[in-house]
């Protein structure tokens, strides 16, 4: 269906849902958005003391919940709670993901299915859920998918993980088209972090990546959060893009 472009600007997000917000990059995103004055709803399978502390410090601007991202019914309930407590959601950060650390030939088929369900199916379902709420309310909003450099470059031991991240990058482009400018949809693809999921690569591979990185260091969560915030809050006309944050390691 060919339609004229929607020229009205998408306002900065004021209520942002962050999946996987209890630790690592997700927690850093929640903290950064709160510092920027945004109301934030965060869920994760397990609520960490750090996330609990943020909720206690900002009772009027934070809503947290223990939700497994693959449990769509629980996610639906959480979204309704958020709308009641913080107002309509007009921004989402799909950050929840599980890593991988096994050669494809020796990865159990159940594990492959679980990685795809967590990293690809669940964020697509959550995005569908939230954009339906936004569209029904006539809201404009912004979507940021946290993907990975693995979606663009090959790394051993990360086959299924890479497939999901590349899949989310592809979905980002199509969703940006489909939503016709009513919502801005982008991916942020960090390089490897020194901690957490990067542990899968082992010290030798991480050393190699550092040596190949012009900035001389692995990505830190604090280097990613300003980009996420920009995509949620600034007027940039960036839409349907994958922004790599890796110090040019992959170039």
């Amino acid at each position, binding site marked *: 269906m060919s339609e004229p472009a929607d020229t009205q600007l998408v306002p900065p997000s004021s209520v942002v849902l962050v999946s996987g917000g209890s630790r690592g990059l997700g927690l850093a995103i929640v903290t950064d958005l709160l510092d920027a004055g945004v109301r934030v709803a965060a869920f994760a399978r397990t609520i960490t003391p750090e996330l609990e502390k943020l909720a206690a410090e900002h009772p009027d601007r934070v809503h947290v919940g223990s939700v497994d991202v693959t449990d769509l019914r629980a996610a639906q309930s959480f979204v309704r709670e958020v709308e009641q407590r913080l107002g309509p959601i007009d921004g989402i950060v799909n950050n929840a993901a599980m890593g991988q*650390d*096994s*050669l494809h*030939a*020796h*990865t*159990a088929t159940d*594990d492959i299915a679980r990685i795809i369900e967590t990293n690809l199916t669940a964020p697509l379902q959550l995005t569908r859920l939230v954009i339906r709420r936004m569209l029904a309310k006539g809201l404009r909003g912004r979507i940021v998918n946290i993907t990975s450099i693995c979606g663009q470059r090959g790394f*051993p*031991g990360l086959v299924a993980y890479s497939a999901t991240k590349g899949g989310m990058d592809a979905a980002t482009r199509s969703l940006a088209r489909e939503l016709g400018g009513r919502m801005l949809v982008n991916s942020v693809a960090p390089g490897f972090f020194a901690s957490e999921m990067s542990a*899968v690569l*082992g010290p*030798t591979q991480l050393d190699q990546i550092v040596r190949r990185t012009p900035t001389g260091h692995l990505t830190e969560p604090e280097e990613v959060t300003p980009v996420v915030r920009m995509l949620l809050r600034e007027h940039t006309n960036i839409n349907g893009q994958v922004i790599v944050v890796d110090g040019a390691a992959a170039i």
Partner: protein
Amino acid sequence: MNELSRAQIRDLMAQVLKNQDKELPADDAAQLREIGFRSLDFSELALRVEDETGEELNFDAPGLRRIATVGDVLDFLVDLQHQ
């Protein structure tokens, strides 16, 4: 489960190397790097063990990275069959 002994796994490892015109040393302390046994050779060996036992052997990479000697390979695969 039809489990392979350490000696049987050693025989399969020798076959993997022989197909590449390489020889498996008798010494379990021999370094894999020196004999040219790489991670995909390990993968091939694991799949050969699977063929013999009829059971999938799935494992994560960190354990694989700690393997440095012939003995490590044999120990890893013997242990893996018990998991």
